[in-house]
């Protein structure tokens, strides 16, 4: 658990020592964090890490075994649900209502409402607004769910894996919408296992594994702290066993094969020296690629590469 340095007074949303057991299984193990207003806060972790349980406890869907949740420094009351917007990982809507009617239905559940036309426009639902929910595609449904989450002009928006199962175009489109919402000063809590998504959208992240927070902070800072240096990628056939032995003996370099076994990934803090070593050993550098560490590298480093169920 990493909760040092968090000022519980300043966060719009504060989670303190949250614990959730399902029978004997501990899904959330003493998690604490605080979310400042106006940021996009990422909750990352492999499958079954406890992300959705944590977010659903905050939303009031699931009861915690113990722990405290404060909204604007006070326990949640009825008005909390007037101020939040929620997009679940997978829920259905009234099948026979149209997209427009669905948004209207949810809008009428709140005192504070935004313009329906505006919502339809923001979420790019103009073309399908008169179609029944059962007839829309996955990407359209996610945009509708987002529109519903925004129906009450919420201060705090929970997006639980909003782009899971979407094609790249739909995913990028949704990112644009979320970025636009963020620019309006809304606080967003996003869970995802797409690291690219988190890196693009999140100002601050926590990485959760087996119910515990294993890393917390600003993505770039975490990457710098935990994954120093750059990555050099080369086709693995270009790197002879002799060169690999040389790399093994260099204390500033580590290497491994990528998931496809087609490329060798060399991690180093001394890129120039490493390239010089490769050139001196007649390694073909025509397909060389250098890239900085990203959130996925950090994620895999912290959570390991073993398959999760």
């Amino acid at each position, binding site marked *: 658990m990493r909760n040092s340095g968090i000022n519980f007074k300043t966060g719009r949303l504060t989670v303190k020592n949250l614990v959730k057991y399902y029978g004997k299984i501990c899904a959330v193990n003493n998690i604490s964090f605080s979310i400042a207003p106006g940021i996009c806060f990422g909750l990352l972790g492999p499958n079954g890490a406890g992300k959705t349980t944590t977010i659903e406890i905050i*939303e*009031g*869907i*699931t009861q915690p075994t113990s722990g405290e949740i404060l909204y604007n420094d006070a326990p949640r009351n*009825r008005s909390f*649900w*007037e101020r*939040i917007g*929620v997009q*679940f990982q*997978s*829920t*259905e*809507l*009234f*099948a*026979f*209502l149209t997209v427009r*009617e669905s948004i*209207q*239905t*949810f809008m*009428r*559940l*709140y*005192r504070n409402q935004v313009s329906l036309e505006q919502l339809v426009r923001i979420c790019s639902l103009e073309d399908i607004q008169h179609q*029944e929910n059962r007839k829309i595609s996955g990407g359209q449904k996610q945009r509708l769910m987002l529109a*519903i989450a925004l129906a009450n002009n919420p201060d705090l928006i929970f997006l639980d894996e909003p782009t899971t199962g979407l094609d790249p175009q739909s995913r990028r489109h949704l990112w644009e919408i979320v970025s636009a919402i963020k620019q309006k000063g809304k606080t967003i809590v996003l869970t995802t296992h797409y690291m690219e998504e988190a890196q693009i959208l999140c100002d601050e992240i926590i990485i959760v594994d087996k119910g515990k927070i294993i890393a917390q902070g600003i993505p770039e800072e975490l990457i710098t702290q935990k994954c120093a240096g750059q990555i050099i990628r080369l086709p693995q056939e270009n790197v002879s066993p002799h060169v690999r032995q040389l790399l093994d003996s260099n204390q500033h370099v580590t290497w491994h094969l990528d998931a496809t076994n087609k490329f060798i990934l060399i991690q180093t803090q001394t890129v120039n020296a490493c390239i010089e070593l490769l050139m001196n050993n007649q390694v073909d550098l025509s397909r060389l690629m250098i890239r900085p560490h990203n959130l996925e590298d950090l994620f895999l480093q912290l959570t390991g590469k073993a398959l999760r169920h």
Partner: protein
Amino acid sequence: MYRFWSIFVARNKEYYRDRASFGWNIMFPFLIIFGFALLFQNGGQRPYKVAILTSQSIHSAIQTQVCSHDFFSCIPIADKEMAIDKLNHHQLDMVMENLPQPFKYWINASAPKGILSESLLTRKAMSKDELNQRLIKQTINSKPVYYIEWLFPGIISMGMMFSSLFGIGFTIVRYRQNGVLKRLKATPLTSFEYLCAQITSRLLMILITNIILYFGCSWLLGFQCRGSLIHLLIFFTIGTISVISLGLIVAARTKTEELAHGLLNIITWPMMFLSEVWFSIADAPQWIKRFALCLPLSHVTSGLRHIMNDGAHLFDLSSEIFYLSIMTIIFLFIGSIMFKWTQ
């Protein structure tokens, strides 16, 4: 109120746009009533089947004395062995030789219908004077209640029961299963508001469909309500709310539609047989009669029959209304306490 209204409107739209389900809900009671009307037209079927052992025409004495009777249906069968076998297996009630009087007949002594048909035959054989010496016949002066008039309140109660229990039970369980309820839980909507909207929406739909059904059947089958239509509507509403509330208990926590289906069957089958929808339980053991009083449909059917067949006033139904109101309060209380938004 605005939250209640929002869910109420949404649910109504869902209901009438689901054409298959909406159509079936209207058609089902119509089909049952028309089926029975066809079956029982002109006094209905003759209940006792008599096989006449012949391959040719039935003897005129048998025609006059037996086949012309309202309760006997004569079937010519040439094969005596086969006829006796059918009698033995309760497929026939009597077998008779195709001869003039004295008639020679067989019955299955273990078959109540056989014994009854024999009684009818012996009564027919007696002269009017003989009968008058032994029996004094009394007749009721009020207008007779035809079977279809007696059956109709039972059928609409049964249709209402299915629509209430399965309608509310399945809808809520399905919404819980596919996450609609979970999404609603993350809003300021309370479970009380949600359940009230569900009940009201279902009530409205049941009232509309049954009003159409009543006037449709009344026009086509030519019967009428002897009591006030307003009283009939009020009592039907009270009964429907009670049965819908019972459905809420099933829907309150059930996780899957399969389980809901099983639970609803456990409730509907005893109600259908013990609420006198189809037949009277006057001769049933006392404990069954007491148990039947715990079922809302018994009171609904009884009250509707009193209004429609006997012209009863709402005040005459105070005990039915009392029981139904108590049951509604208990069911709503249990249902709302047990209710869960998520699985």
